[in-house]
């Protein structure tokens, strides 16, 4: 059986057009809650988060490696915050190695986690689970 490619080429063209349009919107759409852009210090913190591969054990919004806990809201969590974060960086714990950051670097990491924290909530305990299987998450501005 020889397949006639024309309908397939047509479907491909339609899909590609939709994909282009969709990407355009995704790349130009901000998050649901308006938050400040990452500050230069926070960007530096993010780069440290990457260079030291913090993500390979920790998650943000549940995404990352799984050896350590999620850090999305570690900045604002009760009893945690800036000093708590710095203490862990200084001492390490269990499988987390001790890091040798300067005070400035620690501050940058804290700033990054602070700004991440402002974008939303995870785990999202107050989310509403609907009968359709949909989950309506709670946003920062609804608190």
């Amino acid at each position, binding site marked *: 059986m020889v397949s006639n*490619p024309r309908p397939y080429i047509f479907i491909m063209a339609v899909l590609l057009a939709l994909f282009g349009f969709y990407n355009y919107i995704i790349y130009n*759409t901000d998050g649901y809650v308006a938050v400040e852009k990452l500050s230069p210090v926070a960007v530096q913190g993010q780069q440290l988060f990457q260079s030291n*591969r913090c993500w*390979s*054990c920790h998650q943000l919004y549940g995404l990352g490696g799984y050896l350590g806990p999620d850090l999305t809201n570690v900045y604002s969590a009760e009893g945690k915050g800036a000093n708590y974060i710095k203490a862990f960086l200084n001492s390490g714990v269990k499988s987390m190695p001790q890091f040798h950051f300067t005070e400035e670097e620690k501050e940058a990491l804290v700033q990054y986690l602070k700004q*991440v924290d402002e974008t939303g909530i995870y785990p*999202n305990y107050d989310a509403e689970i609907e009968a359709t299987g949909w*989950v309506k998450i709670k946003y920062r501005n609804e608190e």
Partner: protein
Amino acid sequence: MKNKVPLLFLLFALTALFLGMLFGLTASLQYLLPEFLKETVPFSKLRPFHVTSETSWIVLAATGSIYFFIASVEKFELFSPKFQLLHFILFLLTGVAIYFSFAFDYTEGREYFAFKPILMIPILIGWVLFAINYFKTLYTNMKGWPVYYWMWGTGIVFMCYHLMEAHFWLFDFFRLNFIKDFAVQWKSTGSFTGSWNMLVYGISIYLMSEIKKDTDVATNKIAFFFYFLGLTNLMFGWAHHTYLLPTQPWIRYVAYAISMTEWIVLASIIYNWKRSVLKIEKENHPMAYRFLLATDFWIFINIILALLFSIPAINFFTHGTHVTVAHSMGTTIGINTTILFSALFFIAHYVRPQLKTDTKWVKRGFVAFNISLFIFFVSLIIAGAKRSYWMYVSKEGSFAEMQDSIVPYYISFFIFGIGIFISLLIVATPIFKVLLHKIKS
């Protein structure tokens, strides 16, 4: 057969697979003995080594197989053998550079591509060379192109795109806006996986049509229907990784709707169960055939899991736990690796027809591999379920206490990880021998 580059790709791929498993085993040891090795090779050093090696195994083995099929089996004259060689050399050198970059902590990149971002350039050039070679070789007339030619072409093109997209964070336009940036990061990695799946699933259809000696499986309308369904999921389905990220809700609605179309795939698997069992030509390809049967089984298991946690209400509880890891490794090992081993056996037989592949040891290894993988997979699911219980139900005790309570499952994960390593090594030994022999000759 003059052209040995495809075989070099395959040898390189197998090396990455086994090295990668050693990294994975050492990493998982830290779940059991957290203090052990943590100052010399912490988990955070080993994870990128493991994940990058294993994704490279899939991509390299798929590339080598595709080159082999078009040039040696289908006997197309390759547009440029030089490009092919250059492609190989680029990937080999970049592979070495990536390991160096990991070893000496030049890891400015992000998850899955943790190496120095500049190393993405030779990788991209390699893909472009592959694309030129592929399309120039095959594109005389698309009439009668079986579905796997479409799939490979699509896989190559989208691979180029999504590897670039995975580095959009280098631009402030993305980077400064955390939620958008994070969403695009996970969009790109999701679609990167979709792209290699195009290559690998294309290979499985190719093998089926070759082993069955029946081209219909690759040319009928249903095959194309599933190809376009897969492509739609590649393009728009990624956001089920980010249901809990505060993106615009429509992005997640679209992903939910698109992801649910995969039920059609499940229904068709069940419906076609008996018919899909390949009957003919087993004699010539006993191991290639067995591995495809294993693929069928693993697709079935994994698709049920994936479908369930693409439902936001279920994803809510499984997200951020080892259930996700069970899915990643369940699919990369259970589906991709079995298809690629089927291809390797097919190729080994092609290179040396007198080779007896289904020896007693290889068959034992095959069985041990599937059993080990099953227990490995179940251990991860249980570990994930326990973490989820801690996160959402009991909410008691510290993170460390929760991790300690899961240790028995991490132990079985580790032991059956060793099982996967040894059994695959047994299965791969004859393939290694054939490849080395042919490359040297």
